């Protein structure tokens, strides 16, 4: 596997430790007692169906969402104990690629990629411009896009600009939120290759939230599957698979194999029992 060959060293000490994480929005609990340790240098794919809490877990890792209980330890420091300034410094060690790229639409592509550099470094305009062009070239975008507004770009280009922006200040950890969702198969593969190339060029730990099994198999050296709390009984663990991507198909858990193979199975029956007889008969 390319990703594994490109790995800069054996995963060693834990970089991110999630312990007893519980996240709740109002009365809706999304994550319950999630424990997870991610060693430095690893590429972890977090899979699971929509609404299972993958993105919430990712956002919790940089303190964008506050947990109801439990917490996150990054490089030995508890996130909840950091001051605002320390949290800002901590966040600078992460690069976050958002699901819909989340580019600032009031700025040009160049200003978007330059944003973290201008916020946190004292680099000159020329230096910043140079880095912006380098990062855009790394993700295969020509210098001409610098002056364009995000609205003028295609979905795939926006994702790549988002990747370039996340890479701008050489992060130690890359967080990808659904990097291939909404893209055509060719562009999805390009994004997969870019993630692999990023790891080859920069010594980063990566966490990829996805429901695209192709991405998980191609990019990751460990796969974690989260199951929605609403489908679990009290006390059942929310992480239902944690292992290498090669072995996920042979999992003894039917919930895992159902997801991996993309089978509706009994869900169709459940839907039929609940609602929408017209929709189902039409399909």
């Amino acid at each position, binding site marked *: 596997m390319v990703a594994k060959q490109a790995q800069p060293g054996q995963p060693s000490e834990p970089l991110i430790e999630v312990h007893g994480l519980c996240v709740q929005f109002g009365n809706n609990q999304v994550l319950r007692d999630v424990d997870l340790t991610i060693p430095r240098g690893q590429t972890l794919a977090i899979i699971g169906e929509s609404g299972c809490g993958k993105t919430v877990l990712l956002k919790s890792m940089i303190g964008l969402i506050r947990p109801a209980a439990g917490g996150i330890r990054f490089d030995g420091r508890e996130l909840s104990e950091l001051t605002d300034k320390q949290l800002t410094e901590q966040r600078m060690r992460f690069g976050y690629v958002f699901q*819909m790229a*989340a580019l600032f639409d009031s700025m040009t592509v160049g200003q978007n990629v330059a944003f973290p550099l201008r916020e946190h470094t004292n680099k000159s305009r020329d230096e910043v411009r140079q880095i912006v062009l380098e990062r855009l070239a790394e993700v295969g975008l020509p210098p001409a896009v610098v002056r364009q507004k995000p609205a003028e770009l295609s979905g795939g280009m926006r994702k790549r600009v988002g990747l370039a922006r996340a890479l701008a200040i050489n992060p130690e950890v890359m967080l990808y939120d659904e990097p291939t969702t909404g893209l055509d198969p060719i562009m999805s593969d390009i994004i997969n290759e870019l993630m692999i190339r990023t790891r080859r060029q920069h010594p980063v730990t990566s966490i990829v939230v996805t429901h695209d099994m192709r991405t998980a198999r191609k990019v990751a050296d460990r796969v974690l599957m989260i199951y929605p709390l609403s489908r679990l009984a009290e006390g059942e663990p929310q992480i239902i698979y944690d292992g290498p991507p090669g072995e996920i198909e042979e999992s003894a858990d039917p919930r895992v194999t159902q997801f991996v193979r993309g089978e509706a199975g009994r869900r169709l029956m459940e839907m039929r029992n609940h609602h929408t007889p017209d929709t189902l008969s039409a399909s």
Partner: protein
Amino acid sequence: MEFSDDQAVAPARTRLNPMQLAAELIADVGELAMMWATALGSVLLFSWSTLLWLVTRLPRRETLLPNFYQIGVLSLPVVALTGAFIGMVLAVQSYFQFRVLGLETRLGAIINMSLVRELGPVLAATMLAGRVGSAMAAELGTMRVTEQIDALASMGANPVHYLVVPRFLSCLVLIPMLTIMADFMGVAGGWFYSVVILNIDSHHYWQNSQQFVGSFDLFTGVFKSLFFGAALSLISCHRGFNCDPGAEGVGRAATNAFVASFVVILVLDLFLGIALDAIYLAIWPEGPSIL
């Protein structure tokens, strides 16, 4: 297939005794009070965080100037236009009543006094809430929905410092100027209609104005406008930051921002009016001149 209310399946209502009804009523009122208290607390915390960031680190020039342009320069024509028309409307509405008493020349005093104390600041603030406040709520709401606010935070930029402080500062600094513009155009509009259209003597019109409208009245209006500007920017930004998902959420944030700002502007106007009158009476115990 059409459904009428009669056809809708309504759950059978169980008959409640008066005690249960009273308990339900108290519970509903309590829930409403909790909701209001939570919303108020959330706005106050948001405002506190904005003020803290304002004194900690001033926003950058490149984030401030576009807001100054958007909030100040682009609002100027509409504020000037409405100011001029309100001045003329005041002249139209007051003229006949004053003519009956033979006090036409006192129109200057009543028009200009109403303008600088009340209508100028309230009108400028209302226009700003409608033109800028709802736009801010919609813009920030869209940024929330499309994760741009999360993106800012993930790159170590504080969203309140980066997005709210420049908007707050622009409203605070520019609303007095917009108020003065509304006052000026209102005074000009009132004079134009009274003197040019209704043929009231210009000299006496101004003399009466000068006699009754003092600098404290002008100060009152401009001073109040600072509170209006602060309130409308904070409320609008807060609505945007706490926007519900989807296009509907953004639309609701924009509407709520205007409605809440408008109500708060009027409530503030009342209490500031009372407070400023008390201050006036403390300084000049003989009270204001009577027309």
